[in-house]
Structure formats: C-alpha cells, structure tokens
C-alpha cells in the first residue's frame, strides 16, 4: 500500500496537504502525530469514508481509488474507527458480519456463520458473550473489542486501526497486540494510530509522522528514539512528558460514605482533599465510570452519601454542580459533547448563567470567554463558532475539558481525560491538572493508562468489581502492584 501526495480539504480546513507514505505486507506502520494532524482523515480516505481532493493511492502496485467504504472493503481494506461504529439494535453476531455477503445467495443461514463469529469473538477474548446478545447493552470496552472482531472477520489484506486501545484496559491491549502480531505473520499490512509511544514501540516496525496534514518523517522504528519522534510531531523539543507542578494536598473537602449504586459502585467510602489529584485505576468494568457518575448525581444511588465540607449534598446533578462538582464524560461522542453545536456553545453550556443578567445573555462576553478557554486548552479550530463535529477527536476532548474549566468546578471528576490526546498536549494537561491542584482544587483522575496515574497523582485507588479495594500514596504503588490489586478479587 502506498499513498502519494494525498490532499483533502474540509471547507477552510486543510486536513491533508500532501501526504506520502507506504505500508508493507507483514509489517505494522505506526502513524503518529498531534491531535488534528490528519491521521484519522488519512485512514478514512484509505478506507473510502472520505474522498481525496487530489493525490494517488496504490495497493500492490495497482491504482486504488475507492468510491466508498464498500469499494474499499472489496479491495481488502478494513478499518476500526476512532469513534465507535456499531449498530446498537443489532446482535453482536450481526454487527460482526455487517457488510459481508450472506451465505446462500442473499440469505442468512446463521448456523453456518456462527463459526466465523465464534472464532472472531474468541480471538478478541469475548468468548463469554453470546453472539445473539444485543450490542447496545455491552460495555464500552466490549464494544471496542467487537469492532476489532469485525475487522478480523472480514478477511482483509490491509487493516487500519485508529486508536483502538484508547478505551481498552491493559489486558485487552495485550490480547490485541497478540492478534496484530498474528495478522502480521499471516502477511497482512497494518496501519496503526496511537498516542502511546511505548505501545508503538512494542507493536510497530515502521513509523510515519504527520504534522498539520503533511508527512514530516518516516522510517524504521528501531532507527529513531522517542524524543526525536516527539520533536518531529510537535515541531519542537518536549523535555518533560510528565511535568509536575508542585502542589500540596490540604484539608478534607469531599467525603464519600458507603456510596452504592445498582449494581456499581459498591460501598465506596473515601475522603478527598483540597489540592489533591486522586487517581482511580482498575480493569475495564471495574465500575470507575459508574463511581464518578454516582458522585456527580447522574446514576442511580442505592445508598450512601456525598458530603462536601461536612454538608450532605442531595443526589441531583444540579445540586452536585452547585457544590462544585464537574464531570468529564468518557463518551465524548454520545454524551460529552453536543456534536452539532458550536465550540462556544459546548464550552459554556454548563454555566450559561454566568453571562446572563436577568436571564438575558451577553453574547459577545460569552464568545470572548469561550475563546479564552479554547486557547487555554489549545483547541485547534478556525473559529469558536465552528461546530464540534468538525474537530479532530483529540480537539473534541479538549473542548470537553474546557467546559469543566469554564464551570469553575472545585472538584473535577475526569473520566479518561487524556483519551485520544497527543503526547505534547497530554503534557500540557498534566501541567494544567497540577496547576489546578495548586489552586486548591480537587481532581479525581480515572485512567486506564497507569504511567500517567503513577506520575501525576498524589494518591491512587484501585477498584475492582465496584469496590475500592485499596488506596495508597502514588509513590507506594508500582505498576505490578496496581495490576495485582485490580485482578486480585477477580480470580
């Protein structure tokens, strides 16, 4: 597979301005770049979801210009998209086989297809799921794996993976890599987007770096070191990937007592202090998301209380917000952002009242303010009036983050805040979290990426099956110990 001088514009935005790269059979090409560099756009162009404005693509020496995803699939290209793409009303089996021909002239003879489905589910470690179950009810991680299973079942020659690990826990990542290696041995070509350099090193053979829609470097991974890659991506040197702003946890602010939902969380009791970054680790389905949502008043509360500064806060989103809580959702497409609304609208939605006098909003004040927040988190867009759906995945995440900041939340509940964020910006976000903590704010930081938890947090709690199994100071944990705690009760 090779791509020559590919260009693509979205209105005023030049997403791709001359990209050239090659991917080879039996090798994994890592596609690296900042948020909005054009990685997803490139892969979507290859998978036929977008049409290039100019440039050429070739597969096995033949000219390749897919008229749509249909044609691309026909040519043996399968892609796993950055945002989940499943039909929630269909069964798992149907989702996996979507787009494939039936057995027997347009008829679906399910028993004959069960094998393919079973094998694909086995490979991604979802053996326990029944193929006829509804897809919409599965957890985010399972859904991500079902997508992988779909790509596996499609018999592709070229597989495109757009940040497949961003919502996968460690164990599943390992399994995914196992699959990728096997595919590689079978002679498939794979292009892989990730913001995790260590993942890239583990799985990829070659790299290609994009910056502002242009290819700025490519080659074999063993001939380049991390800092070189980073400076290629960002265009300058980044010295510290985990910057630490000094802050000291102070007095108690939030106290959770016996917080229980249906079914998760279970009996969680913990206190959070001012100026503290409190990490939460755990396997997928451990109930971390549900814990945050329960604290925020969104999920059903079976029993338990949330106290802020000794005062019990009613279990309602608005009451919790008034008490200073702010939640960043892990599902930015479905919940986190109103995709069709503008950046301004999305940033200010949680606290429009701030710009209002007697119920009337001062529009220009609102716009200026949202511009300030967009700058602060470095949203890459051509105007704050642009709708969020036109932003790259990482930039959308930044908009969601900007909203929490705009709300002036005192207790920030961040669910996978660095999901899909590039290395350079991640460092910025860590720095920002440090600064916020130094201002005395409390941060609850849920992440499946242990290195960042260990580097950034003051304390880390490990959750398993809805309970908080252990809380320690960050320095007292090692990666292995966290994993052990997370799996302990599971076995």
């Amino acid at each position, binding site marked *: 597979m090779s791509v020559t001088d590919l260009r693509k514009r979205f209105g005023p935005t030049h997403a791709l301005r001359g990209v050239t790269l090659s991917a080879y059979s039996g090798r994994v090409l890592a596609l690296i770049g900042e948020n909005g560099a054009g990685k997803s756009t490139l892969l979507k162009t290859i*998978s036929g*979801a977008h049409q290039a404005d100019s440039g050429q693509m070739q597969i096995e020496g033949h000219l390749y210009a897919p008229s*749509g*995803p*249909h044609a*691309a*699939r*026909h040519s043996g290209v399968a*892609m796993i*998209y950055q945002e989940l*793409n*499943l*039909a*929630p*009303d*269909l069964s798992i089996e*149907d989702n996996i*086989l*979507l*787009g494939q*021909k*039936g057995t027997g002239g*347009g*008829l*679906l003879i399910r028993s004959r297809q069960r094998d393919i489905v079973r094998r694909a589910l086995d490979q991604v470690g979802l053996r*326990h*799921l029944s193929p006829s179950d509804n897809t919409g009810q599965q957890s985010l991680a*399972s859904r991500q794996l079902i997508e992988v299973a*779909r790509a596996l079942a499609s018999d592709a020659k070229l597989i495109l993976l757009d940040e497949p690990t961003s919502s996968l826990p460690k164990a599943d990542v390992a399994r995914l890599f196992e699959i990728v290696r096997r595919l590689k041995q079978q002679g498939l070509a794979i292009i892989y987007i990730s913001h995790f350099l260590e993942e890239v090193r583990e799985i990829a053979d070659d790299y290609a770096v994009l910056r502002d829609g242009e290819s700025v470097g490519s080659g074999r991974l063993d001939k380049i070191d991390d800092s070189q890659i980073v400076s290629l991506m960002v265009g300058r040197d980044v010295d510290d990937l985990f910057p630490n702003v000094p802050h000291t946890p102070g007095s108690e602010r939030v106290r959770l007592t016996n917080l229980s939902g*249906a*079914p998760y969380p279970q009996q969680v009791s913990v206190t959070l202090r001012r100026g503290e970054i409190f990490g939460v680790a755990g396997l997928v*389905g451990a109930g971390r998301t549900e814990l945050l949502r329960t604290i925020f008043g969104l999920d*059903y509360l079976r029993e338990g209380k949330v106290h802020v500064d000794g005062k019990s806060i009613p279990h309602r989103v608005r009451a919790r917000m008034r008490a200073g809580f702010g939640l960043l959702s892990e599902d930015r497409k479905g919940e986190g952002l109103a995709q069709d609304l503008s950046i301004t609208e999305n940033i200010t939605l949680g606290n429009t009242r701030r710009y209002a006098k007697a119920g009337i909003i001062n529009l220009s004040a609102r716009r200026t303010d949202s511009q300030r927040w967009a700058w602060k988190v470095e949203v890459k867009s051509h105007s704050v009036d642009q709708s969020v759906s036109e932003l790259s995945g990482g930039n959308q995440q930044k908009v969601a983050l900007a909203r929490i900041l705009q709300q002036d939340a005192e207790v920030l509940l961040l669910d996978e805040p660095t999901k899909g964020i590039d290395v350079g910006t991640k460092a910025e976000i860590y720095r920002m979290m440090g600064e916020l903590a130094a201002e005395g704010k409390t941060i609850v930081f849920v992440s499946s990426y242990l290195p960042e938890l260990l580097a950034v947090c003051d304390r880390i709690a490990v959750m398993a*099956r809805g309970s908080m199994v252990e809380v320690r100071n960050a320095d007292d944990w090692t990666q292995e110990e966290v994993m052990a705690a997370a799996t302990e009760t599971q076995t």
Partner: protein
Amino acid sequence: MSEVASRESNSSQWWRLLGKLQLGPLIALAVIVAFFYIADGYWGSGNFLSDYSIRMNLNAAALIAVPAMGMTMIIIAGGIDLSAGTALTLCGTILAVGLKTGPDAADGTMYLFGLLALVIAAGCACGAANGLLITGTNVVPFIVTLGTMTIFLGIGQIISSESTVYAPTEKLPQWLRYLCYTGSVGSRYLMNGIMIPTSVLISIALALLVSGMLNLTVFGRNTLAVGSNESTARLCGINVPATKLLVYSLAGVFTAIGGVLYFANIKNGNPTDGSGKELEIIAAVVLGGGSLSGGRGSVLGTILGALIITTIRSGCTQLSIPNTYSQIVIGAIIIIAVIVDQLRHGSPEWLFRMIRR
C-alpha cells in the same frame, strides 16, 4: 467478565423473550379484547366476539396491516412515509379507472393482469420516487414524503377527474369482488367453506414473507443496520442509498396491494380518501413496537398494532359509545399501549426505581 454475564438475572432473560414474541402489544390487545368483551356482554348486544364480528374486524385490520408492513420496513430503516395514505388511494383509483374503462371481467383476464401489474408498478414508482428523493437530496423523509403526499393526491385527482370512480360489478372478477368479503356465504371465500376473508389470507402470506425477509436475508439485516446507525452501516460497506431505495420501493408495493384491498372493500376509488390514513398506518407500526428513530420494529407487532386500532374502533361502535368519546378513548389507548410496551424495556426509569425501592 463472565461473572457479569451470570449477574444477569433471570428476569431479564424473561423480558427479552417477551420482546421477541411482541408480548407487549399482544398483552395490550388481549386486555382490550377482554375489556370490550365483558363490557359488551353487560351493555352491548353480546355479539362482540361472534364469528361475523371477528371476520369483519380481521378484514378491517388487514386494510391497515398490509400498507403498514411496508411502513414497518421504512421505519426500521429509520425513515417515515407520510405519503403512504395518498399513494394507497392513488393506486386504488388507478385500479378503479382501469376497471371502469376496461372490458368485462369475463373477457379480460389478460387485461386484468396487465392492470394489476400497472397498479403494483405505480405503487412501486411512488415508493421509488420517495426513495430517490430521500437518498439523492438528503432531505429528511418527513419533508420529502410530506411533499409527495400532496403530489400523489394531485395525480390521483387528475386521474379520477376529481371525483369518486366506481367500477360496475360486471367488470370485476369474482376474486376481486369478494377479496374483502366477510359475510356468511361460504362459497364466496377463497377456500370454499373456510370462512377466512381473502384479505386476511393475503396479509398472513405477506407477513410471513416480510418477516422472513427482515430476519433471514442480508437485505433485512442491512435495513436494520441502516436504521440503527447509518454511519456505521456506511462504514461497514453497506450501500446505504441502495438499501433505502429498495426499502421505499418495496414498501410502495405493499402500499399498492393495500390500494387493491381498499378498492375491493368499497368498490370505489377516491384519491382524497387517503389523507389521514398515513397516521393510522404509522400508528399501527408504533403500537407494534416500532421505533421512529429506526432499528426496531416487527411485522408481527405491526399486525397486532393494526388489530388494536380496529378492535378499539369496533368495540366503541358496538358499545354505542358516541363518536366524540370514542375519539378520546382511541387517543388514550394509543398512548397507554405504547407505555405498556415500554415497560418491558425498563422505561420509564423513575417508575422502576420506585418499584425497586
């Protein structure tokens, strides 16, 4: 994660089974029938469940159910068709005009087949026009079909010269004449002596066909996928426009068959009769568990939905409830039936939470 699966309580399995069997609408229908049966026994003529009454009711339901099967497909694919009513009467009118101007039935078997083919083609063309406009222009189905609704009405009026078209009896072949017959002369039924109205037999056959198509073919799965998540469908390589076009065109065929039944029922064609029918048809689908946001719906459910509508209507008449009150009753029952159906999806949440406490 297998623990998670085992956590799944039995009750949820149970609900899922209910879902498959369309027990929501079935229970609703049963309750309604029981209610009217008892009420009729006390205050009515006691004929509510007589053979004749049942036949009559089934026939009335078939008139709704047949076009509603097409609508089911459209709704599953995430669309809607407001033009179904006027397209239906347009087809009925074409048939009426064709019969009126054609030879007597005895001499014109070939003519009749040609005419029926024309009617089906017309319905299919109406559907295809909707499909083409929707896929070609990206305008939402609601508006496209709102537009074609009046267009089909206009075409019908041109064809009928703006009035009711009556086809004399001698021009009608026996089978067409007694397609919707529900009386007590056994020999007038399709299967001599087995007194099931032909319209009902046709509905059953069509229902099996559509049900099979939706559940057992690639096309059916694609339809469901398009309605459930269009961008996913596209990215999985499904030809979304082609699927939609096919869905609308097929639905047009059902509309046309519905038009034939409509004609056979009253032996007249009047294009204005169709205005308003579309809501009835859509209501049948939704009462049967179809979701207007796409991805959900079933033919069996739709048939139950149609039965619910006609049962309420005839129940109200047989109880001599004045027109005005039956309107209120029908409105209320539509809402209540959907609420009942939603209960099995665990909605509304506040109610279930209260129960769980």
